[in-house]
């Protein structure tokens, strides 16, 4: 190391002294197979640099003694000192995977030095096509990283979970770190600006992030500046989507034959509310720089339509990454900023739900009604009045507005200062703000609206409603840390230590009011005419503000490499948070991991790396909400408007609330051979003292719920990823993962969750947890296949001769319920294939999940031929039994939802050096027996987010779509 530095300073000296005698050096840059267009050549230590042309040729002005640095992404850079020669031809070696540098927490390491479960994915491996959500680039690519976006709603959030469930708090998604900024938002990074991802999977890797790393960490690195004259790149995509799958219902003829009420029309409701949706994406970026000062600036425009009418978004995003050096290059300054403006039409998913169950013989418009019907009152639409939960789906989606607007802004600065040869100091300061505003307007002629608190078109006195919602969140991060390096012949030591301060706050406000004069205008823009303003109690308003949530943390880490094949990493973080009880604010989170590369020790031929490793770490998990340790009260006025008011308890205090703590032990092995690389990880996690809102003695606390540290989860699993170059033109890779979560301790022996809901199935809970058993059980009576008087007969599961199937007996010892399936898959697979034929590259990515089931709620509610349901359509899948005339949840409505799909197929052609064309299909085909619209697992209850109630395919789903995308990439 010292020697290198000496060389370097020598080079500097020579470079400066040689400035006077510049000469022209030219040549060619290539690899084993041919020229490398776009390779950069820079005179070290100067701002002089050029880019090789299409044939790999370059020409640069340099002086004898200058050091030329030749580099190209994915290749090991080479340095050549200029002598007298005028021509320098270089053959670059593709960089050794083992020396690939991965960004990890507060630093970076070479792949070979990593001793915990860490996976890195670079841009070439990303999913292709019209991808609007940054996390979907990774879907299926990282073993153990679950990314699900059920359905085709372009505005729906993606569910991300690493290594299963490790907490019951809100903090069950991995922490996102973008360019070093902890807790950054993936909403503010355009997928086309991402260079690479690093996923820190186990607790030892994540422990340096302390409390926020408990569910794993996803580190995002955005593309940064290049060298040379500005390089302008354009990429564009045009995409068309259509509905992939829907649940089978009856045709008008079948409906009438089954005794449905004939309203004399024939309407395909789903067809009426969906469309072929178009999406266009345009990205422009410019990069440039001179080696000292580099920049990349990009602008991204997305206009996406959803398959449901009036849903979609327009988004504009721009990002600037700028870096420069000062103080003799000892200080490096990085400045990043990004801004997103997104206007979204959220539409109303309910329209799809009612399209599924609305009478197929009902007309869309009032003029076609089979009897006298006052259509003017309903905007010209027909409505089956006087029924529960029955609304014209076309009226819902066409009459009403649901528009959101999101703005995100980040900016931050990183300073890196080389204090001395082996000490570097880092300072980072970043700010992030996010605003979301939503406006909903229900016209006075809309029968449907989202709340019982509003008047619908059938109300004689109060029609129409407008909703206003806004939230704002701010986040700031300040970090100061340093690293110290020490190298000897057989040892490399890096010590990092620092301090992190994080502060965030959040506020929101909502109000709603209605009763508007008409629909001449959208009165959401003229709410002063609401009659609710004259009537007490009709205006709904609420607002809230979180206090600043602060985190104070000190951390330290040691990376030790011995003999270049033994590696040890250890870290510790001590952290305090405002969110915990007064007595338990601070927690300490240690981690240690080690590994050894056996390949050189054993002298294995053809094996570059064989590295077993073991790691152990502790992470915390903060509660998702503020103030859980405190008592909260509500206020109510006295009544009659006359007599003051009073408070009532909404939550009892718990000053002892403390950190949820996760420990994890991970064994892994990395194998790298000429054509094959593989990684296997096996892990065990225990999360204790998890925080839940538990039932407490109402007589003592005055309220029957408060938050306590009251339980323990443990999980284990494995992850395998294998990559193999079958031929020079065919590469295939597979990732496999499996995870089992067991509830070790809980406030009671068992509990039930996942209420099916109205009509008629309130208090029908379809999932259960039980101490000592796996989380994710779908729980209910077992249908024996026979029907008596329209009702299913159930099995006497425990064989005691007594049939106990009441929902209130669900947790009793003698209940005849059984585990009807698991909401969580046993095995998940991602299989990538890349084939190169001439100019063409074919990427086929298959993805599957196995062993999970879904409660098909559409069937559970609407498949029984309930007599009093004659004016609703019946769901009519291949599993339907027309004899069943009574809606009772049972095993009949729980379906295995194993699936295997061609998730992403891309054919691209490198037309010339500047242009690449591609054709992509997303959701090309799905193989599954599931009769619902989407077999992807529901990892938590889609209604309330409860992670203990997975596996329920709720009726509020947005049907999924298949998309075809044409893409172009052009370098100017």
């Amino acid at each position, binding site marked *: 190391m010292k020697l290198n530095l000496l060389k370097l300073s020598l080079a500097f000296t020579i470079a400066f002294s040689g400035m006077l005698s510049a000469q022209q050096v030219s040549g060619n840059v290539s690899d084993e197979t041919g020229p490398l267009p776009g390779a950069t050549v820079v005179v070290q230590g100067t701002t002089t640099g050029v880019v090789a042309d299409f044939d790999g040729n370059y020409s640069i002005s340099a002086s004898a003694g200058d050091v030329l640095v030749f580099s190209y992404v994915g290749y090991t850079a080479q340095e050549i000192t200029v002598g007298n020669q005028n021509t320098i031809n270089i053959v670059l070696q593709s960089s050794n995977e083992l020396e690939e540098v991965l960004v990890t927490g507060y630093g970076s390491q070479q792949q070979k030095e990593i001793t915990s479960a860490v996976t890195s994915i670079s841009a070439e491996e990303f999913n292709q096509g019209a991808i609007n959500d940054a996390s979907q680039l990774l879907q299926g690519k990282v073993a153990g990283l679950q990314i699900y976006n059920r359905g085709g709603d372009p505005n729906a959030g993606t569910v991300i979970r690493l290594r299963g469930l490790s907490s019951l708090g809100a903090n069950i998604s991995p922490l996102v770190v973008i360019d070093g900024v902890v807790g950054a938002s993936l909403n503010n990074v355009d997928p086309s600006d991402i260079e690479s991802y690093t996923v820190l999977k186990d607790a030892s890797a994540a422990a340096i992030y302390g409390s926020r790393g408990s569910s794993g960490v996803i580190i995002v690195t955005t593309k940064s500046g290049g060298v040379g004259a500005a390089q302008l790149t354009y990429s564009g995509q045009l995409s068309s989507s259509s509905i992939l799958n829907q649940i089978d219902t009856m045709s008008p003829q079948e409906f009438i034959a089954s005794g449905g009420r004939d309203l004399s029309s024939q309407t395909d409701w789903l067809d009426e509310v969906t469309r072929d949706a178009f999406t266009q994406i345009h990205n422009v970026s410019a990069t440039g720089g001179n080696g000292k000062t580099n920049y990349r600036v990009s602008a991204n425009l997305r206009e996406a339509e959803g398959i449901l009418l009036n849903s979609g978004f327009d988004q504009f995003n721009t990002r600037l990454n700028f870096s420069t050096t000062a103080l003799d290059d000892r200080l490096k300054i990085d400045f990043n900023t990004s801004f997103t403006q997104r206007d979204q039409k959220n539409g109303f998913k309910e329209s799809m739900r009612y399209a599924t169950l609305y009478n197929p013989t009902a007309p869309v418009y009032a003029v076609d009604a089979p009897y006298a019907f006052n259509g003017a009152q309903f905007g010209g639409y027909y409505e089956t009045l006087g029924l529960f939960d029955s609304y014209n789906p076309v009226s819902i989606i066409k009459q009403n507005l649901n528009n959101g607007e999101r703005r995100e802004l980040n900016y931050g600065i990183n300073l890196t200062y080389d204090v001395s040869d082996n000490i570097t100091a880092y300072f980072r300061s970043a700010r992030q703000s996010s605003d979301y505003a939503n406006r909903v307007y229900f016209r006075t002629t809309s029968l449907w609206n989202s709340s019982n608190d509003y008047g619908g078109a059938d109300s004689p006195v109060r029609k129409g409603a407008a909703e206003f919602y806004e939230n704002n969140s701010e986040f700031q991060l300040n970090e100061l840390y340093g690293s110290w390096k020490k190298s000897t012949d057989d040892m490399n030591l890096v010590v990092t230590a620092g301090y992190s301060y994080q502060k965030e706050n959040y506020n929101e406000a909502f109000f709603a009011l209605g009763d508007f004069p008409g629909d001449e205008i959208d009165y959401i823009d003229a709410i002063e005419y609401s009659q609710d303003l004259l009537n007490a109690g009709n205006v709904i308003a609420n607002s809230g503000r979180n206090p600043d949530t602060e985190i104070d943390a000190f951390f330290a880490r040691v990376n030790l490499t011995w003999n270049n094949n033994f590696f040890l990493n250890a870290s510790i973080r001590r952290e305090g948070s405002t969110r915990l009880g007064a007595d338990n604010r601070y927690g300490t989170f240690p981690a240690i991991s080690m590994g050894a590369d056996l390949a050189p020790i054993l002298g294995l031929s053809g094996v570059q790396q064989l590295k077993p490793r073991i790691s152990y770490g502790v992470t915390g998990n903060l509660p998702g909400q503020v103030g859980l340790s405190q008592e909260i009260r509500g206020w109510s006025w006295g009544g009659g408007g006359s007599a003051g008011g*009073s408070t009532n308890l909404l939550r009892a205090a718990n000053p002892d609330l403390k950190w949820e703590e996760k420990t994890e032990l991970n064994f892994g092995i990395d194998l790298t051979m000429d054509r094959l690389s593989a990684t296997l990880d096996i892990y065990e996690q225990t999360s204790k003292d998890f925080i839940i809102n538990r039932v407490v003695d109402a007589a*003592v606390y005055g309220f029957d719920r408060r938050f306590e540290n009251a339980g323990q989860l443990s999980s284990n699993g494995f992850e395998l990823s294998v990559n193999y170059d079958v031929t020079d033109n065919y590469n295939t890779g597979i990732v496999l993962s499996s995870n089992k979560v067991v509830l070790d301790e809980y406030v009671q022996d068992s509990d039930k969750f996942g209420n099916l809901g109205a009509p008629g199935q309130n208090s029908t809970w379809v999932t259960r947890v039980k101490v000592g058993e796996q989380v994710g059980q779908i729980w209910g009576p077992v249908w024996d296949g026979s029907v008596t008087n329209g009702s299913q007969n159930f099995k006497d599961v425990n064989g005691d001769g007594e049939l106990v199937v009441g929902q209130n007996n669900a947790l009793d010892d003698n209940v005849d319920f059984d585990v009807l399936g698991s909401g969580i898959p046993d095995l998940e697979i991602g299989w990538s294939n890349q084939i190169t034929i001439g100019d063409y590259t074919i990427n086929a990515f298959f993805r599957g999940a196995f062993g999970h089931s879904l409660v098909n709620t559409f069937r559970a509610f609407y498949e029984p031929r309930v007599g009093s349901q004659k004016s609703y359509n019946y769901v009519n899948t291949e599993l339907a039994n027309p004899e069943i005339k009574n809606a009772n949840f049972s095993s009949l409505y729980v379906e295995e939802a194993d699936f295997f799909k061609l998730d992403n197929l891309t054919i691209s052609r490198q037309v010339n050096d500047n242009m690449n064309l591609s054709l992509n299909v997303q959701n090309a085909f799905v193989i599954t027996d599931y009769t619902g619209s989407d077999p992807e697992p529901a990892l938590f209850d889609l209604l309330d987010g409860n992670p203990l109630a997975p596996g329920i395919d709720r009726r509020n789903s947005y049907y999924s779509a298949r998309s075809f995308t044409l893409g172009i990439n052009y370098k100017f």
Partner: protein
Amino acid sequence: MKTINKIILGIGLIGITYSCTDLEEELLGDLTSDFSLEGISTGGSGGGGDALTGVFNAVRNAGTANHGGYFSVQSVSSDEMAITQKGGDWYDGGIWLEMHRHTFTPANGPVTGTWSQQYGSIAEVNNAISNAGLDANQMAQAKVVRAYLHWRLMDLYGNIVIADGSGSSNQSSRSAVFNWVEGELLSALGMGSSFDLSGLSNSSLGTNDVKYRINQYSALGILAKLYLNAGVYTGTERYSDAAAAAGHIIDNGPYSLSDSGISVPNLGKRPAVSSDPDNLVGYAAIFAPNNENNPEIIWSVEYDEATAGGMNFHHMTLHYASQYTWNFEAQPWNGYVALEEFVNSYEAGDDRRKANFIAGPQLDYGGNALVDLASDSPTPEIVYSIGINELEPNGARTGGYRLGKFAFKQFARPNLDNDYPIVRLGDVHLMHAEATARAAGNWALALPEVNAIRARANVSALSSLTAEQFLAERGREMFQEASRRTDLIRFGKWNDSWWEKTNSDAYRTVFPIPSEQLTANSSLSQNTGY
């Protein structure tokens, strides 16, 4: 180098500044304990109310007149009403079917919720007692309310925890709770340790007619209820004391029966319909939307469509389409129905039958027939029939008369305006009559008061009376007033069979202790039989 040092120094300073953070969390968007004490003790900031507002709000919030809580468990478990399963609607895991058939379990949602609801309200009363700076009169009122809520719990669950603010979680036997409730009431009435009307002069409670507050008469009314059922609670009958307490109200209270006659309230204020829910008379007026000054009401819970929500009988009982009769803002739920046998216990000319039930063909505001396109009958017109085909699974959507006692006003919002009486003179007369008769072992002694009640309803006087007849009369008068379960138990009829309910075991006279609470409080033990 100087610049560099400054930078390092600067960075260091920033770090140090932030590291001295105080991690105290002060909530900004929520009311915490600090506020609540201040709010109550100053008599309600912002509204200028009195310190008892919270105490009486607590009764309103205890499931008194809405779905799922105290009202529902008292009523649906009795022979006056049920929630039928109407095909795909109202199965709800069977909780209401088992409520009606007395097969409820410790996990039953309404059984669980009602327990928590009462204790939540008791906690609010305790908060006022310890922190609101109550004067002697207010303190006495608060303690009566607390005793009343404990009476509900003791009546429902038997052995419960006395939440007197001490924080104790020990379970007390039903008779110990009885003694405590009695003691609290006696003390508020100035009576010392035993019932003695002459002690009333020492009472801090007033005697003026205050519907929304507690005076001596409301406290005596609650005491009368307690004594009337003493035999059930403790095994020791207290009929004479019950009669004395009720008699004192009748003789001395500033109350009179709501005048004779009954108007038919529930056709809505429609054109061409003469009855007007804002202008009812007699029996119907006690429960009307504008019943706040009815002379018969001794203590009622205040409800208001805008400021004191929580009563929604219209949603609970009416068919979805009945929205168009009264022009309700929101759609009803088609749930609660009156049982045929119960409706038939009214004689044909009994005006209470018209007042208490909504029956027959239903018309919209304009007078056109309401229809139900999903109806299973061949004609879609909605006619509430007296008979109900079955309790489950396919109860007719229009089967059963509907609960109409608390009249709905035209254009009603999701919350109703009618106040809910807890103690009213009609009930006090019946308690007095029953207690007198039982004390003497002679039901004929109840005849004068029973006949007075009957006269108001336009039915002929009875010349003789049996216990069974008395219970039926009490049922007709007290329908929808959350009294039926307690009455059936006292008359030994609770475990009988009726309609689709078969005989239930004797232990069902008390509900099970909720299993959630058994888990949360290890000192609780389950009631026998569960």
